[in-house]
C-alpha cells in the first residue's frame, strides 16, 4: 500500500512540477534547460568553495543548508530504495547508513528552523487574496500589487513550515519507538506514521527545492 501511494505521490509531484515549468516558464535568459539546472546544482554544491561575499553566519547558514540537503538525499535514497524498488523493509547496511544520517539531519533541520524561521514568516503581502477578503469584512488597508515571485515565495514559505512541522512526526515516530512505551500495535502505528510523514516531508522538500532553484534562476 505504502509502495503504491509513494510511487503515485512521486509521479504526481514530478508531473506537477514539470507542468508548472511548462505553463509558467522562467522569464529572461534563464531557461529550464538541462544545462541551466546542472549549473544551478553545481553552484549549490560548490558554494562553499567559491569566494563568498557573505558574513560568517551566512557561510555557516549555506553550509548547513548543504549538509541538510546531503543528509536529506541520503535518507531519501536509503529509506525509499528497498520499500519502493524491492518491496522490502529497510534493513542491512542501508538501515545503518539511514540511522547514521538521521540524527545529523534532525539537528540540521532544527538549526535551519531557528535560522530561517524569521525569513520565512508570513507577511501581509504573502496572501493578497486573503487581504482582499479581509478588506471587504474589516476594511483593512493593504497593498494591492502582486507578482508571480511573491506567489512563489508564499508557496516556498508554506513548504518551509510544512517541512519543519513534518520533521516532528518523522523524528518522534522513530525515537518514541525506541522507548518501552508503545506495544506491538503502537509500534506499527509509529512505523506507518514515520513512513507516511516521511513521504509527505520528501514531497514537500522536493517542491521547496524546486522553488528555491526557480527563484535563484530569476
Amino acid at each position, binding site marked *: 500500500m505504502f509502495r503504491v501511494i509513494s510511487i503515485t505521490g512521486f509521479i504526481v509531484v514530478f508531473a506537477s512540477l514539470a507542468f508548472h515549468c511548462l505553463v509558467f516558464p522562467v522569464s529572461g535568459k534563464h531557461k529550464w534547460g538541462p544545462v541551466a539546472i546542472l549549473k544551478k546544482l553545481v553552484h549549490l554544491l560548490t558554494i562553499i568553495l567559491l569566494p563568498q561575499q557573505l558574513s560568517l553566519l551566512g557561510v555557516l547558514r549555506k553550509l548547513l543548508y548543504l549538509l541538510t540537503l546531503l543528509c536529506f538525499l541520503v535518507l531519501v535514497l536509503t529509506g525509499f530504495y528497498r520499500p519502493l524498488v524491492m518491496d522490502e523493509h529497510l534493513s542491512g547496511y542501508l538501515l545503518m547508513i539511514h540511522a547514521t544520517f*538521521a540524527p545529523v539531519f534532525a539537528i540540521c533541520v*532544527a538549526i535551519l528552523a531557528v535560522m530561517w524561521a524569521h525569513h520565512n514568516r508570513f507577511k501581509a503581502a504573502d496572501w493578497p487574496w486573503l487581504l482582499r477578503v479581509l478588506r471587504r469584512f474589516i476594511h483593512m488597508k493593504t497593498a494591492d500589487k502582486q507578482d508571480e515571485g511573491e506567489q512563489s515565495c508564499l508557496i516556498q514559505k508554506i513548504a518551509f513550515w510544512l517541512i519543519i512541522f513534518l520533521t516532528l512526526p518523522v523524528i518522534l515516530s522513530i525515537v518514541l519507538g525506541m522507548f518501552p512505551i508503545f506495544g506491538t500495535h503502537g509500534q506499527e502505528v509509529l512505523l506507518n506514521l514515520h513512513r507516511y510523514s516521511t513521504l509527505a516531508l520528501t514531497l514537500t522538500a522536493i517542491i521547496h527545492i524546486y522553488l528555491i532553484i526557480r527563484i535563484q534562476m530569476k
Partner: protein
Amino acid sequence: MRKGLILTGTLFWLALAIPTFAASDKILLGDMQDGSLAQPVHLINLFDEEGQRISPDDELVLPFSMRGSCADCHDYDKISKGRHFNAVLPDAEAGRLGQPWIYVDAATATQIPLSYRPWEGTYNPRQIGLTRWKFIKSFGRQLPGGIGEDTDAESPDLQARWTVSGELEINCLACHDGDPGHDRAEYATQIVRENFRWAATAACSFASVKGSAQKMPETYDPFMPEILDDPKLIPLTVNYQESAFDNNKRVLLDIVKKAPDYRCYFCHSNVKLQEPDIQHWMTDQDVHLAAGLTCVDCHRNGLDHEIVRGYENEASVSTNPLAASSSCKGCHTDGRLGASEPKHAGIPPVHFERLSCTACHSGLMPQQKTQRIKTSRAHGLGTHSVNRSADALPHIVSPVFAKQPDGKIAPHNLIWPAFWGSLKDGDVVPIALELVGKAAGKILDGGKVSRSGDWPDLTAEQITKVLVVLKNTVEKPVYICAGKVYSLDNKDQLTDTQDCAAKPYLWPIAHDVRPAAQSLGSGGCSDCHTTDKPFFFGRVDVDSPLVSEAASTKEMVEFQGLRPFYTKAFAFSFVFRPWLKIVSLVSCLLIAGVLLLYALKALGSVVKVLSEEEK
C-alpha cells in the same frame, strides 16, 4: 409389470446405497460423544492377543493386549495413524523437524540422528542396519508402541524372534493411565528383555511379569509354552493381582482422557547439565505449567490422535482443526485459555518477522557458550539403566539460535553427527554398524568405553587406520564428525573437508517457556545487540571425539544466515543509540519551540489586526 418396476427400483436404490453404507466409518462406543464431560469409568474385561478374556486364575495367564482390550470401543486402526505412532507409515506427514532418535555407540565413535520420518539431516534406521527389531530394542523404552515387524527387512532369525517377543502394540496406558503405580521404567526393562508383548502389562500396577523372551529359544511359543530344557531359564509368566478383578473378571482401569504431565515427561523431559550446583528443584518449570495448564491443554488431539505440535504454520500440514489456534500466536492473540496479549513495548515489529516467539521466550537463557543437555529420548532418562554421567553420549548442545526454513531465527537443540560412511555421488551414506564394529573394534582401543559413556579419545591415526580397513569393503569410506568429512587421499593420508553432509542436525525447541520478565529483550536492546552477547556472538560447542578438535567452537551467527561483519557492525552501532535518542529529542524540542514561537507570533498578529479594527 408394476411389480417388476418396483423390484428394479428397489435394486437400483440398493445398488446406490450399499457403497455409501460401506464407505461410512463405523463409530465405536467409546468414540461417540454423548455430551457428558464426566470421566467415563473403564471397568472392563481384559483380552489377550488372541481375543481370549483374561482371568487371573487361568491355567495359562497371558499379557493383555491393547488392541484386544480397547479396540471393541475405540478405533484402534484410526488411532494407530496418529502422530505418536505413524512414523513408520510411508504416507505420514513429516511436519517440522523434530527431535530424532540418536543412536550412540561410543566404541565406534558413533552418534547419529535417526528417524523414520524424512527429516533432512536424519538417517533412516535401516541405513545403519537397524531393523525395526533392533530399533525397538534400542529405543522402545520411550516409544508409545505402534511399531510392528517389517517382514521385508528382517532376517529369518529375527522373524522368529518377533514370534517369541510379539508386536509392540500401541500402549494406550503410556499416556492415559492415571494410576500412579503405572511404571514406565518397568516398560523399558521389558523392552530390554525383548518382552514386547508383555511390556504394557508389566508396566501396570496390578500385574507383574517374570522371564525374558530374549533368553527363550526361537521355537518358544508363548501361547502353548512347553517345559524348558534349561532349568535356569525362567518361563515367561504374568501374575495379575486377583483383587484387581471383580466377580465378572473385570478390571478397573484409571483411564484419563487428558494425559497427565508426568506421563508426557517420561519421554519429553530435558535437563540442563554443566551446573552441578543447580539442581532441578531450584529451577522453574514452564510458565504455562506454573500457571496451571497441562501439556495436553495445548497439545490436543481427537480420536485420530493427530496431536497438535503447536508450531506456527502447522495448519498447512496438519489435519487437526486446532493446529492454527494452538501456536503461541494462536492463543496469545485470541486470548484462548486466558492467554495474555503480549505488550512487547519498545520492540520494533521487525523482530516478529525475523524471530520466532520461542527465540526470546523458550529454552535455556543463552550464555557465552552453549550448554549440554540431556533428553529423555536421547539418554533414556527415567529408566532403570540410565547413565547419570554428565558426559554420557549423545552430546546435545543448547540453545543454538539458528534460522528455520521459514526464515525466522529460533532456539534449537543441536547434535554433531559422528559416524562412518561411504561417499556415493557426493552424498554420505552411513555404513552398517556391524561392519563398522568389525573394522573399528580393535583399532579404537578394542571397543573399550569409559564408564561415563563419553567419547573415546580418538586420534587422526586411528581414523586413518579404520578408513584403510573399511576401504576393503566399502567404496570411498569417510568418517563424519564435528562438521567435517574425513577421508583418505590417493596416498592414504587423512584429509578433512567442510561439507554439507557433515552439518549438524538441529531441531527447534519450544519449552520451557519463560515469562515476559525473564525473556530475552526484557533488559532492553542490549540483551542481544551488543558485540559480545551470546544471541549473535555466543560460541556453539563443536562436539567431536577427535582429541585435536575437542575444544573447537563456532560463532552463533554462522547458524543464522547472517553476515558476521554486518551483525557485528550493527551491534556496535547500538553504542550510539543513546546519543541518537538525545540528539533527536533535542532537535524535536528546538523545532517544536520554533513552531510554537511563530504560531504565537501569528496569533499575536491576528489579535493585533482584529483589535485595531475594533478601535
